[in-house]
């Protein structure tokens, strides 16, 4: 596991380490099974084409899940994901790279919690943000750790 991230390690503007993914049709079928979302748009090419798309689409919620992975990887076991929000603005297709990215937008201490707010998004190969959103995480603080020790 990666080393623990602390509140003191982040500043407004810093980037979250990107997570690069390239979903395959197999992964979409796996997601359908895991999520119980069997909408044909995500595995039946003829169905997708009849709806005006060139190919089957990556599930929006799968992209939500990938953004979740980027965040849980980043905050480590000592961090808590409090909020994850995103909009499915653009379509992504299997076989194309999806890069999950993020940036710290705000940090503050409230009610003893060390809170970090981030902008997050997924990017397609043309650099378009197909899934913009935001997240709130609570990080451990070195100062607090010291006090408790």
């Amino acid at each position, binding site marked *: 596991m990666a080393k623990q991230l602390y509140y003191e390690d982040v500043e407004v503007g810093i980037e979250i380490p990107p997570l690069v993914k390239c979903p395959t049709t197999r992964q979409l079928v796996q997601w359908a099974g895991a999520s119980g979302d069997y909408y044909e748009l995500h595995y039946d090419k003829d169905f997708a084409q009849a709806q005006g798309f060139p190919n089957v689409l990556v599930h929006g919620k799968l992209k939500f899940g990938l953004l979740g992975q980027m965040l849980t990887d980043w905050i480590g076991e000592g961090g808590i994901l409090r909020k994850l929000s995103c909009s*499915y603005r653009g379509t992504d297709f299997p076989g194309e790279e999806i890069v999950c990215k993020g940036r710290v937008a705000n940090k503050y201490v409230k009610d003893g919690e060390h809170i970090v707010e981030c902008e997050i998004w997924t990017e397609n190969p043309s650099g378009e943000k197909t899934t913009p959103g935001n997240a709130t995480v609570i990080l451990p603080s070195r100062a607090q750790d010291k006090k408790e020790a």
Partner: protein
Amino acid sequence: MQQASIITDEMKEQLGVEGTPTILEVEKGHIRMMAEALDDPNPLWQDEEYAKKTRYGGIVAPPALLCNARAGTGRGVQMKSPFLRALAGGDELQYYLPVRPGDVITSVSKIAEYNEREGRMGKMLFTIIDTTYKNQRGEVVATSRSTSISY
């Protein structure tokens, strides 16, 4: 001439009405399927021995588990739309407590809002669904707000 609204009185009556609760028994196998579908190797989702030593004290579910057709987000509510085609518009999850294998999550959804908009492909209906997820102890583990777009 003013075009008729696609939001009918029948649809308006559904606003705020709590749907049938859906129950999700959280199981290790399901968490594993989810982690495999995300290709997320984090041992917190799968490795009991490892997870025991963390502050969670055992396996927990990845955030995506509750963002799931089986666990709520619109299950149990009567979504009405004049259109046949639908897409997910967005999801917002607030997490309060970890979800663990063995938990029984009851989720209750309601339609919070209908909005109609004119899009590139004609009229579109945005349906906003709010869901509350409680565990077997009645604790709220998460809430969500999801948008479904039909056109």
